[in-house]
């Protein structure tokens, strides 16, 4: 808890010292961090390797975009609503996808994300088809404040979402519910035979994951000012999975670091070369081969591991 507060304080002080372009990058890193952390709930704690997590992001982004474009609901509430919507939709998704296990589950989630992608391309009224939704505003409020519409204010809103989401996720995985999830991760058959309805647990964790992932997407829409079908594309699903693996699965903090690392490397490499994806692919293969525990695992190597994982 002390570390969390210290990091929060440090991040809260960032706008004092950093130039605007760095703030933009940092805001994006926090949004991506929330997105990657939401996936870690599934991947790291229940071994539900979703290859379609862009679905959560895109759902959140399009929902939030529509709310902001067509209603007067203030920005923070729009973000929360979009997260809830994404989480609710995912109950149906999870019900179908958890029919399968292992790699089939991954493929099913991919299929769902691609289905949404295909729908988004054709449902012009809600998504603007291939043009996407443009000019998404940051509606003022609540109580008439325009704070969250400003660059700094939006950063603090993102920070609040990330930390709120982190505390929520951490409470979740430390609860008895989380213990059952880890049981599913280690040995689902055994957990089932102990009398737990593992499928319900899995559906619940997918819903929680989609809610947080949807919030991340919902933040991205007013951050970038647009939402397009790229946000539902499988490439994003792959990228966020990379962030989680590179950061370290089952740690919640790791994937946030992984997301920051991803964006930082991408930004630095793209200064020198167009082919940043080449280097990123190599780095990623290296991590899977030699450091499956991720950045956080590397940092913890040699030290006694925390048992609560």
């Amino acid at each position, binding site marked *: 808890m002390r570390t969390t507060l210290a990091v929060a304080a440090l991040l809260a002080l960032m706008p004092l010292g950093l130039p605007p372009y760095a703030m933009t990058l940092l805001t994006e890193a926090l949004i991506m961090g929330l997105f990657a952390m939401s996936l870690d709930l599934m991947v790291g704690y229940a071994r539900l390797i979703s290859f379609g997590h862009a679905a959560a992001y895109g759902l959140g982004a399009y929902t939030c975009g529509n709310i902001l474009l067509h209603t007067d609901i203030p920005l923070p509430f729009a973000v929360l609503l979009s997260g809830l919507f994404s989480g609710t939709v995912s109950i149906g998704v999870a019900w179908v996808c958890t029919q399968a296990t292992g790699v089939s589950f991954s493929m099913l989630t991919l*299929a769902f994300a691609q289905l949404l992608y295909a729908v988004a391309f054709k449902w012009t009224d809600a998504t603007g088809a291939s043009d996407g939704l443009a000019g998404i505003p940051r509606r003022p409020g609540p109580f008439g404040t325009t704070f969250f519409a400003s660059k700094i204010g939006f950063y603090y809103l993102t920070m609040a979402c990330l930390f709120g989401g982190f505390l929520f996720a951490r409470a979740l995985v430390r609860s008895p519910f989380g213990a059952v999830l880890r049981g599913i991760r280690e040995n689902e058959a055994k957990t089932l035979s102990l009398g737990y309805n593992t499928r319900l647990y899995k559906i619940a964790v997918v819903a929680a994951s989609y809610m947080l992932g949807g919030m991340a997407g919902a933040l991205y829409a007013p951050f970038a000012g647009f939402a397009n079908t790229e946000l539902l594309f499988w490439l994003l699903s792959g990228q966020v999975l990379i962030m989680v693996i590179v950061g370290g699965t089952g740690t919640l903090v790791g994937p946030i670091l992984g997301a920051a690392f991803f964006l930082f490397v991408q930004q630095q490499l793209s200064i020198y070369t167009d082919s940043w*994806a080449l280097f990123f*692919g190599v780095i*990623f293969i290296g991590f899977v081969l030699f450091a*499956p525990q991720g950045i956080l695992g590397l940092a913890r190597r040699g030290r006694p591991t925390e048992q609560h994982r």
Partner: protein
Amino acid sequence: MDVLPFLVTQCLNALSQAALLFFLGCGLTLIFGIMRIVNFAHGAFFMLGAYVGWSAVRLTGNFWLALIAAPLLVGGFGAAFELGILRRLYGRDGHAFLMVTFGLTLVMGEVIRLLWGVEALQVQIPAALSDIVFILDEPFPIYRLFLAGSGIVVGLTIWQFLERTRLGLLIRATSQNAEMVHALGTDVRLVRSAVFGIGCGLAGIGGVLAAPMVTASLGMAPNAVIDTFVIVIIGGMGSFLGSMIGALLVAFVQVFGSYYFPDLAMAFMYLIMLTILVVRPGGLLGKEA
């Protein structure tokens, strides 16, 4: 236009499309069936085949040479990747392969962009196949007939290869019980390298054959890999016959769907896949749930 000629030409269209999809699907399903590897880079190998084919046609001016050279090169590269990288991952769970091959997709996409540039490259249809025939008075390109035919030929060849040859026997045995095959004195690791190479080589053939129709472009890999997954998931991971059924189903949905319901064709394909998976989680002919 009359109904009958229209239906016939559309069916032939779908068959030629199915042949291309089958080259991709049977390679992926072969690799999965033997090695339990989901090769995310399969679309990238397909794309590599198309680009290598383009270069080979440019160098030699002969499409048929390209059709031989490209799969050999692509398959060789696949086998080398298995030897160098994938081999270190046996014993880890299946997702490690999915992730490594995803990384490989990024790398291959960039390398191809660096080597061949961003422009789509047109491969000429070989002179012998560039004509048009009239089927029930409807014009139809010979090349598409050739595609459909080559799909059938390659499908039969692989089937006979798996059933009749010694390597085919070893491959089938490895898929059933790798340890026993190893204990009986065959180096299973070599069988695995061979299978991965053959699977990638099949994707390479598909790439060369597809190049004259769709041009070699950087968008090939993502489109191909998703379609391939759909096929293999519908048919059942690891089932050879299943991948054929899946390819036919997807091709007919794509061709007829884009004619009758242009807005829904793509969504329809995923809906079919989801429905099948809900009813039979292992796919139509898959063994496992």
